[in-house]
């Protein structure tokens, strides 16, 4: 230890003058959680977040998803769960701030409403993605148009009515 102590007098120090010299995080670092453009506003990340840092709120005709970096524990569960890579953990780690607003990351999505009861179905983007993923699976084509913009409970009522009519016709 003695020799090393003496020799390190003439060596460059190991420490980095961090705020003045950059010290970037490596690739793959789990830093600031941010929504990407592919986010469709389905809210899966909010359901799975261990720290309940992601909140989903429907205001009027828009749905607001908000990540609170004060609560977020940067575990990456949301990133793994999101089917459309709508949320990701960037490599930014300098999140100290005095302004409370910068602690959040928000994204807004336009909602679509059910013709039957006027309730919220989901966001428009989400509906497009669903249509896209089930277009080759396909419902019975003739019914597609009628129930396309009904919310789940109205769909149930619609099918129930259809079946009861079919049974009453049958008997």
């Amino acid at each position, binding site marked *: *230890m003695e020799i090393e102590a003496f020799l390190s007098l003439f060596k460059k120090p190991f420490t980095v003058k961090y705020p003045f010299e950059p010290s970037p*995080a490596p690739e793959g*670092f789990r830093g600031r959680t941010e929504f990407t453009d592919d986010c469709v506003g389905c809210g899966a990340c909010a359901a799975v977040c*261990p720290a309940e840092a992601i909140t989903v709120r429907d205001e009027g005709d828009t749905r607001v998803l908000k990540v609170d970096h004060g609560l977020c*524990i940067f575990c990456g569960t949301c990133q793994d769960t999101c089917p459309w890579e709508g949320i990701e953990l960037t490599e930014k780690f300098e999140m100290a701030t005095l302004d409370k607003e910068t602690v959040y990351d928000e994204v807004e999505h336009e909602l679509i409403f059910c013709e039957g009861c006027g309730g919220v179905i989901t966001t428009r983007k989400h509906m497009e993605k669903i249509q896209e993923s089930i277009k080759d699976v396909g419902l019975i084509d003739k019914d597609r148009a009628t129930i396309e913009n009904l919310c789940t409970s109205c769909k149930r009522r619609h099918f129930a009515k259809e079946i009861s009519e079919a049974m009453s016709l049958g008997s």
Partner: protein
Amino acid sequence: MDMVVQFGPQHLALAEPERFKVHTEGEKVVDVEVAVGYNHRGIEKLAERKTFEQDILLVERICGICSMSHPVAFTQAVEDIAGVDIPERANYLRMIIAELERIHSHLLWAGIAAEIIGIETLFMYIWKDREYVLDQLEIITGNRNHYAWNTIGGCRKDITEKHIPPLLTALEVVERRTEYYIDAFLRNRTIRARLVGTGILPREDARKLCTVGPTARASGYAVDVRKDDPHLAYDKVDFAEIVLGEGDNMARAKVRLLEILESVKIIRQATKAIKGLPEGDIAVPVAEIPPGESVGRYEAPRGEVFHYVKSNGTFYPERVKVRAPTYSNIQAVPTMLMGDTLADVPISLASIDPCFCCTDR
């Protein structure tokens, strides 16, 4: 002059709040009263409110420097209940990160021990070399601590081909430096004067108080979960279980430093083994957890981490019981301190590598 010196909740030698009332006659320690509970956050109650998947991340944050031990113990207990065998590669992946954490945790302890007995330089050098391991952990898992590496049924990320070469070079540096530190600890006369013969824990007391980990192994009581109850892939790699007999502070230091060399050997064998296994096959989907109960045990850097998990068929655990190694080691502290002088109290306290946030949960 009979005095009560309080190594109080806030003390320089203790990194975390814990109170030791030391009754001394002059400078000789006569009796020690231990008070725990300053770090109690009710994690076991909180664990019952979250799903199994979320609990892994909660349990990982019980402690900052053993954030691989609790998740591994917890996931193994849940996997036992679900009757799931995780893929071979996942076992190796978990073991590599576990051993990397053992290295950086032991290096952390060695630095703090050197700083407590007064050599700041050794503290700076050891923590400099610890950075190599932490950088590798950051590159592989995405964070220096809190690796979010486990899920029920396997791992969440993989160690790909490009991670291994830098990992092996970092290990070379760590191995060379650890041998240098072992020599520094043993040869430096002032360190020997402080560590040899102080804080002696006889083998009989170590066994009677059921101490665990390096604290027990330094007193000759051979308990090592990696050998007794082989989990992960410890039965497929060969490594030596280091058991010494003196039971003083120097023995505990030697055990930890030698264990770093063993961990380096384990990681080398593990990285060779995962080359042969198919990349990407790292997790098995687990649909639901039947009602049942099981025990997850894991050899953390400080000793045996013990998780008892009871499930009731829903996705929320019925009961999660966590017991950290320091919980049993701390009960051996009074017998260790008896008869030493006041100057030896901080180093003897630190010699069990206490992690009070684990103890209090």
